[in-house]
């Protein structure tokens, strides 16, 4: 029999998180701080809209780009929050989560061999999706000394004549870093100079804790070069509904829609009806959940600080990214020992790129009660390490 598989897909390594996941799920009594989704349930009024749409028998396909009502609400939302104008008819489409939007944006824009700049540490799908689209991923390694922000120097350094696209994943998973207006202005010049396009993954846009999120599309000259990606998963705690969207110039969106039409048909109808309600009546829910995340964020930062774990202050998403270099262990080793000795699951920074070495991703999408229990165990682990280190020295 011939090899039934595609070399391209076989050569892509599986997600680094997977391996760790298998160990964690076998372990009894483990507390996980490894989750990348909200701990809140979807607000009841949104769920109710989904239920109502089922009761009314709205169980058919929607148009490929999504319900008109939803696209109109998305445009209103982008105007309200980001002061961006998009035409609901030609510049917005509803996707199966932000993940689909990332995939089809790359496939719609990349020609074989063209380079895609991917700042890391970042979400696990950018590199594989670039490869699947036939592009060449080029990693930009972000550093803590820059608060894990993308600087114009770092960007310029990796640009070649083959560079076409920059992926901009802010607010960032796993670092919690944000790009503020001045940071975006600083890189906009470089983007324009080299005639690049931007795929801006703004799925955590509602979760910023120092000032309002700014989209790169708001910077003059950038809207026409940007595919803005957002969704309902993080802001409205709707991960399982699988609903995201892309807003982009019609020229690009038209081709993205083609892929979506052939591969997906349309995003789930029930989810789309629920999402209309989320956008219309969900602002208060966002504020409530954000306040809760912010409390936990401050609590965790204070705790890490008091146990002598270095951690830069993240202003976005719901992750802390403490540095563990002083322990002389690799991220993998630290995470594995923490799991074995204290039954706490965190994700090694290396799952999000090689430059995540020396860091851990700690999610605070957990109740304060859970965080308190988990932090006590981490503290015990750190204190034990420090004691042993002290004994060895004396």
């Amino acid at each position, binding site marked *: 029999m011939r090899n039934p598989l595609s070399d391209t897909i076989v050569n892509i390594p599986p997600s680094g998180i997977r391996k760790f996941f298998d160990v964690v799920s076998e372990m009894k009594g483990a507390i996980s701080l490894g*989750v990348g*989704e909200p701990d809140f349930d979807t607000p009841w009024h949104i769920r109710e809209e989904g239920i109502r749409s089922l009761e009314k028998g709205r169980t058919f396909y929607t148009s490929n780009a999504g319900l008109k009502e939803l696209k109109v609400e998305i445009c209103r939302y982008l105007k309200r929050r980001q002061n961006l104008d998009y035409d609901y008819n030609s510049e917005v489409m509803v996707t199966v989560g932000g993940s689909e939007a990332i995939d089809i944006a790359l496939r719609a824009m990349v020609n074989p061999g063209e380079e895609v700049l991917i700042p890391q540490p970042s979400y696990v799908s950018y590199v594989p999706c670039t490869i699947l689209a036939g592009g060449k991923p080029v990693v930009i390694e972000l550093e803590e000394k820059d608060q894990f922000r993308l600087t114009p120097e770092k960007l310029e350094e990796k640009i070649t004549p083959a560079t076409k696209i920059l992926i901009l994943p802010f607010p960032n998973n796993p670092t919690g870093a944000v790009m503020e207006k001045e940071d975006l202005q600083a890189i906009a010049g470089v983007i324009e100079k080299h005639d690049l396009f931007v795929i801006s993954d703004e799925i955590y846009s509602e979760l910023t804790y120092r000032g309002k999120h700014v989209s790169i599309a708001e910077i003059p000259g950038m809207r026409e070069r940007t595919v803005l990606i957002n969704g309902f998963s993080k802001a409205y705690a709707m991960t399982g509904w699988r609903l995201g969207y892309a807003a982009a110039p019609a020229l690009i969106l038209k081709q993205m829609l083609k892929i979506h039409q052939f591969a997906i048909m349309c995003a789930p109808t029930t989810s789309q009806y629920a999402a209309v309600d989320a956008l219309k009546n969900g602002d208060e829910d966002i504020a409530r959940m954000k306040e809760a995340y912010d*409390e936990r964020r401050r609590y965790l930062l204070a705790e890490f600080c008091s146990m002598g774990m270095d951690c830069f202050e993240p202003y976005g998403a719901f992750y802390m990214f403490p540095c563990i270099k002083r322990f002389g262990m690799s991220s993998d080793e630290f995470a594995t020992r923490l799991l074995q000795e204290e039954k706490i699951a965190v994700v090694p920074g290396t799952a999000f790129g090689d430059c995540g070495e020396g860091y851990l991703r700690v999610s605070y999408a957990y109740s304060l009660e859970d965080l308190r229990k988990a932090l006590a165990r981490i503290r015990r682990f750190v204190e034990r390490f420090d004691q042993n280190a002290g004994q060895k020295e004396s």
Partner: protein
Amino acid sequence: MRERILAVIEKNSRIGVKELAALLGENEAAVAAEIAAMEAEHVICGYHTLINWDNTDEEKVIALIEVKVTPQREMGFDKIAERIYQYSEVTSVYLMSGGYDFTVMLEAKSMRAVAQFVAEKLSTIDSVLSTATHFVLKKYKDHGTVLCEGPQDERMMIVP
């Protein structure tokens, strides 16, 4: 800062000042001072525990009594309320708009004890015109907390 402190301790009165200060990103001493001030001003009137008595062996009867009254000269609603809330078995008294005047919540050992209270203590107050007593059968949600089920985390352990 007051409203933010209250929002947290309304849900968790056991939280320590240090942790509370960390949550709010405020100075510990300032938070402690603010709480002390609110206690003095009766903004904070007590620290209670939310108990689901149904899960204990303790027998308890909770009654909600609608009370109609005629306020008399020199004796407005406040005075009548005072005569009602002095009883230790009364847990809450509210002045209501609409079809009746007071809601009186009562906790007692048995239905007979409630009946006795209504017949002997409440109805005998001069201003009380009539009462309608309702018994609570089951508490589903109290003080914003769902009592009947423990929350369960059904998420996968690790998600990128």
